[in-house]
């Protein structure tokens, strides 16, 4: 039974004129039979949420890394006033002791006036610092990449000024690191939930589409179509729906991040704006962040297709 046979029926002179051009064949699975709009909306929302989560995690991580490097390259020393000692002399001696330590590149003792300005937000202007036992601050910059001998520095400083204490902000850095870790962890948790919700929604949509198209699947089985052939025809629709949803959700999130700088500028000066600026810096995503969001949108479309394929094969097993 191959192509070498002649025609099955010979119509003789009745033979119709064969159209010269190929016909536009209808799709095996009609597009309208798959309720795609709801699925596109679900995938778009999920992609949007996932993109916002990823973008925020990237922003927080980048800002935290920036703070950490800034804070880690700085140490501060406090010299407290002590009865029977000249605070001014102690500050100068301690600053000098600090300067001689290897790895210290710049030492800046805060003068009386500068200390008063630091306290102005709390104590108001016109303050006479002489009347208060206010400690004096000395800030030093550490050469990046050097490991400072903190114990040696403390010894050297306390020898000349017993009331001096050195803080390398280690506690702060640790707290920041754990905060960043918690943000990333929460972000990953949200992403996992979003992906799980996407898979479940897609599975339901696929099952619905298969139920609506059961007669088509049965006929395709009758004419000898294998499961792979049938699944591929459904899969095309779901991949397209997934890509559409991913594009809409991911695109909206990217636009959101694109406009965030302008939005941050509108809010600058307000308490909320300043908090955000302190937390997330300029609120602008680097190009690699946009690339990550695009990859994520494509990944969600791929997950949509994969979930659909899995459900398709499971459902095809039940239809014959």
């Amino acid at each position, binding site marked *: 039974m191959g192509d070498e046979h002649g025609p099955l029926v010979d119509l003789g002179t009745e033979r*119709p004129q064969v159209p010269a051009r190929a016909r536009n064949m209808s799709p095996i699975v009609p597009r309208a039979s798959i309720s795609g709009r709801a699925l596109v909306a679900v995938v778009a929302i999920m992609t949007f949420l996932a993109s916002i989560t990823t973008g925020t995690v990237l922003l927080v991580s980048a800002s935290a890394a920036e703070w950490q490097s800034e804070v880690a390259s700085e140490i501060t020393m406090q010299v407290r006033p002590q009865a029977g000692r000249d605070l001014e002399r102690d500050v100068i001696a301690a600053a000098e002791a600090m300067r001689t330590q290897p790895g210290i590149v710049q030492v800046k003792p805060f003068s009386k006036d500068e200390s008063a300005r630091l306290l102005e937000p709390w104590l108001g202007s016109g303050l006479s610092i002489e009347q208060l036992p206010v400690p004096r601050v000395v800030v030093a910059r550490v050469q990046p990449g050097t490991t400072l001998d903190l114990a040696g520095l403390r010894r050297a400083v306390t020898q000349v000024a017993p009331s001096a204490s050195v803080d390398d902000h280690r506690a702060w850095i640790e707290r920041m690191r754990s905060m960043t870790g918690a943000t990333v962890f929460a972000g990953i948790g949200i992403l996992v939930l979003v992906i799980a919700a996407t898979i479940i929604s897609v599975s339901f949509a696929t099952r619905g589409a298969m139920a609506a198209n059961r007669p088509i699947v049965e006929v395709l089985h009758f004419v000898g179509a294998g499961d792979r052939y049938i699944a591929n025809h459904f899969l095309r629709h779901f991949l397209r729906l997934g890509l559409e949803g991913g594009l809409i959700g991911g695109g909206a999130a990217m636009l959101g991040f694109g406009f965030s700088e302008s939005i941050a500028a509108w809010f600058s000066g307000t308490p909320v704006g300043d908090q955000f600026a302190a937390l997330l810096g300029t609120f602008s995503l680097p190009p690699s962040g946009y690339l990550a969001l695009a990859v994520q949108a494509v990944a969600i479309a791929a997950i949509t297709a994969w979930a659909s394929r899995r459900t398709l094969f499971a459902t095809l097993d039940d239809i014959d």
Partner: protein
Amino acid sequence: MVRFENVGLRYGLGPEILRDLTFLIPAHSFQFLTGPSGAGKTSLLRLLFLSIRPTRGLVNLFGQDVSLLGKDQVANMRQKIGIVLQDFRLLDHMTTYENVALPFRVMGREESSYRREVIDLLKWVGLGERMDALPPILSGGEKQRAAIARAVISRPQLLLADEPTGSVDPTLGRRLLRLFIELNRLGTAVIIATHDITLMDQYEARRMVLHQGRLHIYE
């Protein structure tokens, strides 16, 4: 080509509706399958089409034990079998032409390679003018002819037809019988399930009679 040995079939926990069926369907043979309503003709056709598996016994199709076939192998085997069902099973979103061409499409053939063949066959079954019509607007007889055309278009090795002339007038019935005979002449084994004595009287062929779940063969 087809060998049944002591085949029995029951649905669920119900009584056995086909019992101890043992027969051969040789290649190039032609037979009518007949019997009263509810005798199990459609169930036997479904067994032959691999859409149900027997409860017991051996079914061997094209030299293979069907109980050992995987889903892909069943799909491949169905490409060698044409089936016409009583409820036609045409796809409503496809034109008559597309429905008839579906087996070729599933085989992955180019439309240009089968276009003439499909149009010729549609003309032959009297659907030349209805090629671009969708099944919902076809009459019962037209649907039946389209379903027959779809079953025979790829010239299967085995053709199964369930009451194929039930919805057509006697003249067209004779014409469709000629199509089945022609197909058989070209090498297809044909099994036509029917109650239509007139149809059976028109062609001298083996008769398989199902009665109370058992099969009697009259050569």
